[in-house]
């Protein structure tokens, strides 16, 4: 009778151990599956964040060209995607005030046609080819073609001079 009881007790213990092992294995399995799903969805999230950042940067190029600090406005007949170069040169002198204002890394404006060389300074403007407004870090560049207009003078008479250019901005990948 005693042996039979001991035997059934051992059997019970074995069953409990089996159940416990099974439960631990199941928990581990589900935890691994959970981690896998979470990792997968988080990697998708990162991709989505980069995509949104890229989309944002592309829209921002247009936004920049039409913002009051850059835009040609009524001075050059309300042209869309038109940058007033005289205004940009004025902005260049005060760019530190605009730190973090547009939430972008670098802003560069390049003359495409007619092509000209050299970075613009107060001294060589307008006979130059590139205005660097902000150059902070290396990022991914996105650009948009724009019209670059300024006031010029012919025999003392003012007229509007417009050329073809490109505005480039950089953003950082997440």
């Amino acid at each position, binding site marked *: 009778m005693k042996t039979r009881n001991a035997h059934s007790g051992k059997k019970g213990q074995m069953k409990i151990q089996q159940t416990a092992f099974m439960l631990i294995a199941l928990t581990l399995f589900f935890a691994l599956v959970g981690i896998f799903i979470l990792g997968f969805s988080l990697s998708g999230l990162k991709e989505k964040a980069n995509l949104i950042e890229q989309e944002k940067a592309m829209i921002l190029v247009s936004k920049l060209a039409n913002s*009051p600090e850059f835009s040609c406005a009524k001075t050059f007949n309300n042209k869309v995607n038109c940058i007033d170069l005289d*205004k940009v040169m*004025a902005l260049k002198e005060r760019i530190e*005030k605009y730190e973090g204002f547009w939430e972008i890394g670098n802003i560069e404006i390049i003359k495409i046609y007619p092509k000209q060389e050299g970075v613009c300074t107060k001294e060589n403007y307008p006979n130059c080819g590139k205005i660097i407004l902000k150059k902070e870090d290396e990022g991914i560049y996105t650009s948009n073609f724009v019209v670059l207009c300024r*006031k010029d003078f012919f025999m003392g008479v*003012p007229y509007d001079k417009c050329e073809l250019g490109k505005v480039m901005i950089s953003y950082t990948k997440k």
Partner: protein
Amino acid sequence: MDKKGFQIAFSWLFAIIVGGAILVLAVLVATKILGIGGAQVSAETQKSLEVIMNNIESVFETSLVTSFSLPRKTQIVGECYEEGPFGKQIIRVSQKNFGKWSKPISGASTSNRYVFLSNPAEGKIFYIFSKQFEFPFKVANLIYLTSASTNYCFVDAPPSIKEELTDLKRMDPKLNIWVDDCPQKSLKVCFGSSSCEINVDYEEGVVKKRGKKAHFVGDALMYGAIFSDKENYECQIKRLMARTKELAEIYMEKENIIASRGTCRGSLSPELQKIKEIASEVQSSEDLLKYKEVIEEIRRKNENSECPLW
């Protein structure tokens, strides 16, 4: 017999304890994942909202309307701060998940955006439209955000406003703005009457809403006063004035740059200096009214100048 009974009770007890623990753990994990999911959706909505706003701000010069709908009930709150050279605005988004609002997700603070909304804007569908604010040069494109659950009905508005709103309605017939023909459940915006929820004195430049007065110069600010609450509106005025001051400096410098290459008749430097002073003096929307005439005069002088600056 007793001992056997105890054995069965123990295995049951073991199963209940372990089963319970697993269930509790599962519920906790599920809640956490749902919470993360909710926050993720809020963050995505927040980012998409930023893109929509950038888009509406940038591409078009005149008024434009766009709408966006969300799968869940959403609360959008705009917080305005005056600190820094241009102040800043933070948009917080929170969504309803199983009857509970998720933790508000805030986007990066932006210094270059001016969103006018009645805090909090709540619903599933939202409308955004923008309008250019000039003082006297373009300062910014103002954004107005409203929930589709609130209908605004403009009664006896001046012809220019009626025309503009009708055009907006044509762009999106479901827009929550009505002109004269008011739906039953709507917030009435009355011009020339003082018995409505929002009353506008267009000539004097005053919007009276919930017993509070907000002053405006130009239609862009009038819409701002109508669609936002007083605190948000006054804060945005200060931010806009900070940008006006900086733009006046840029135009002064621009005049110097042009002058270094040739001569234009009629300098605008004294006027730009005046704008700088005005922008510094404006402490509330009420102050704007004092300078309405001066600003109009400067605008005319620029238009008649040989080399207009803006």
